[in-house]
């Protein structure tokens, strides 16, 4: 327990000290923040639009069984094969099996956080299948042997110089310069032939459209369609919370998703895939598989965390999070970083392992303010804190401190007597009204002074003034 906590702290500490990382995060996140603000301001009524989006998701979650059945029925009717997976292992197992059946040597994958969540790249590697990440940022992260640090910009922590040297050593034809356009061109060249020679293409889903059985995927690069159209087999991995009743409902959410993520009004490519290639179609996959993944979602539904199932993975909460902006995505140690990750990682990896994530938050509420589906992230984080407290996962020292403090707080007379003494003691350490160091307050005074307590408390002063007033 302590080891894991210190691990988060260590990662965060290292990140805070890393100026290059800080500059990289700031560059992308602050642009995203500004562009989102403009896009939201241009909407006639963001708060009403958000409440519509929230109601749509809530409606689906309240009728999740109905929508899953409807979706499955319609997807099967369109020729898709629908698979169900309870856990991450089961999901990646199914995907790997499909690839094996197709005798796949090379698989292309367009960015999907669920794929990361279920450990699909790793599972494919273990099965000896080449897995090519096609989203530019995922491509960079894959070549560097790293993990995504953001759900929208997985490589936001990397500078162009780092990417240049990475591409130089990994691309058959290296980029001609450090210019970003040349780097993009180099990746385009490297990936184009892989798109066309892959045996299976794997994508995620932004929305599952219940009434048609279609799967909606959005990208700006167009890599999703290039991933899923040429190969014989298209596999979709999707969380069961991705359902929406119809394409119109998807559009309501899409408007908010894109604005919240990048500040654009729509992505360059918004595609609805419905089943495999039809007899007269000019192209498309012959097999179309959809893997519906639970992996903790029904547990969230049962555990009072169902509001988190509204999440549409826009990344706004992390772009606006003061902690994320300081430590970056890797410090969180899970698939999902930032506020939404601090809620999800305890669900996926166990609260015991990740109890520090819900605590590593100032509860300032900015994330909930910008979340396009109104998820009360601070409330959920508080909920996880109390769950951790009840389960005995909190370090004994924290428990002892809070419990002792509470004993005083519950006994006003004792409280005021003790605080009077405490103030006196603390004041022994002051110089010019400030305390630069004192025992037990090292974590505060490491970086800042502590203003000294007043020589007499409000309650004391008030009582004597009261007496002077003669009442």
């Amino acid at each position, binding site marked *: 327990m302590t080891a894991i906590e210190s691990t988060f702290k260590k990662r965060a500490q290292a990140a805070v000290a890393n100026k290059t990382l800080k500059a990289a995060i700031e560059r992308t996140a602050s642009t995203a923040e500004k562009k989102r603000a403009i896009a939201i301001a241009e909407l006639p009524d963001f708060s009403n639009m958000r409440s519509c989006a929230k109601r749509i998701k809530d409606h689906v979650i309240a009728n999740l069984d109905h929508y899953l059945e409807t979706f499955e029925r319609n997807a099967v009717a369109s020729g898709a094969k629908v698979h169900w997976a309870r856990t991450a292992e089961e999901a990646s197992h199914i995907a790997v099996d499909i690839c094996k059946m197709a005798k796949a040597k090379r698989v292309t994958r367009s960015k999907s956080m669920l794929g990361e969540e279920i450990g699909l790249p790793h599972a494919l590697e273990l099965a000896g299948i080449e897995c090519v990440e096609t989203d530019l940022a995922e491509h960079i992260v894959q070549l560097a042997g790293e993990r995504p640090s953001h759900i929208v910009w997985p490589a936001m922590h990397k500078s162009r110089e780092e990417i240049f040297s990475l591409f130089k050593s990994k691309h058959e034809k290296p980029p001609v310069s450090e210019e970003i356009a040349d780097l993009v061109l180099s990746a385009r060249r490297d990936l184009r032939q892989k798109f066309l020679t892959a045996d299976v293409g794997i994508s995620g889903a932004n929305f599952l459209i219940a009434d048609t059985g279609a799967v909606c995927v959005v990208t700006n690069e*167009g890599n999703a369609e290039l991933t899923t159209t040429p190969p014989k087999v298209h596999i979709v991995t999707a969380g069961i919370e991705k359902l929406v009743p119809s394409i119109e409902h998807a559009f309501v959410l899409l408007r908010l998703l894109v604005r919240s993520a990048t500040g654009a009004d729509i992505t360059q490519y918004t595609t609805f895939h419905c089943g495999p290639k039809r007899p007269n179609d000019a192209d498309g996959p012959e097999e179309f598989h959809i893997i519906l993944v639970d992996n903790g979602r029904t547990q969230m539904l049962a555990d009072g965390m169902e509001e988190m199932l509204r999440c549409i993975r826009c990344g706004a909460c992390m772009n606006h999070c003061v902690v994320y902006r300081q430590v970056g995505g890797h410090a969180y140690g899970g698939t999902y970083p930032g506020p939404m990750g601090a809620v999800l990682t305890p669900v996926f990896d166990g609260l015991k392992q990740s109890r520090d994530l819900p605590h590593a938050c100032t509860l300032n509420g900015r994330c909930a303010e910008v979340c396009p589906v109104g998820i009360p992230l601070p409330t959920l984080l508080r909920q996880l804190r109390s769950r951790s407290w009840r389960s005995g996962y909190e370090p004994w020292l924290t428990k002892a401190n809070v419990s002792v403090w509470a004993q005083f707080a519950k006994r006003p007379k004792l409280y005021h007597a003790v605080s009077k003494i405490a103030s006196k003691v603390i004041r022994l350490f002051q110089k010019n009204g400030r305390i630069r160091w004192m025992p037990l307050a090292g974590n505060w005074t490491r970086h800042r002074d502590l203003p000294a307590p007043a020589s007499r408390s409000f309650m004391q002063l008030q009582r004597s003034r009261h007496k002077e007033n003669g009442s």
Partner: protein
Amino acid sequence: MSLARKQIMGNISVALAHREKADEHSIDQEAVKLLTSFEPELPGLSIADVVEAFYTRTSGPKVGASITRISSMEELIDTVAGVLSEKGLVNKIALQPDRALVDLDWGQSGFQLGKEVDDGVVVGIARWGIAETGSLVFHSASDMPVLFNFLPSFHIVAVRASTIVPYLESYANAANIAGDPTPRNVCLVTGASGTTDIEGVLVTGAHGPRELHIILIDDTNQIVGTYDEN
């Protein structure tokens, strides 16, 4: 039924046991109601006329495309020729196998029609246009290969004014009314392929087309501005 499915559905019904389970019909009705409550909040179209709005939108900074307006399909070939020569490109194109395009006499105007889509020039035609976002909508079919939207370096797309609808939702509605069969693949294309993955800087031509040029055909002056959603 797989065991996994059974367990997932079982977990859901246990988790949702407290709710009053509604019948399918009322669930559907509720879903529809959620949409109507939303209508007044659609992003404003600055110009009432949807075709004008589409034009403004696609020629503006948000979409990142270029656009030419012509008054009939007959002008298409010359327009494409003009666009290509402006870019210093030769008249070598691949045509989306749509009748409306294939039936035109490209050869006479000195065009070389090829099959080379990969990194070449593709001339296509969109099934619909959406004014709100400046999107072009493609329905996959025998005459619409999905990859034609993604493999070329330069994508030139014709769209008829009569097929432009105001909002994203109106597209779904209009396609229904027009009796379009639900295609395997619906693709909304809004601008050229782009990425901001490196240092947040926008670069086009990430994987798909580097440039998108739209040719708006004002085919039905009467219909312009009279599009009726109902």
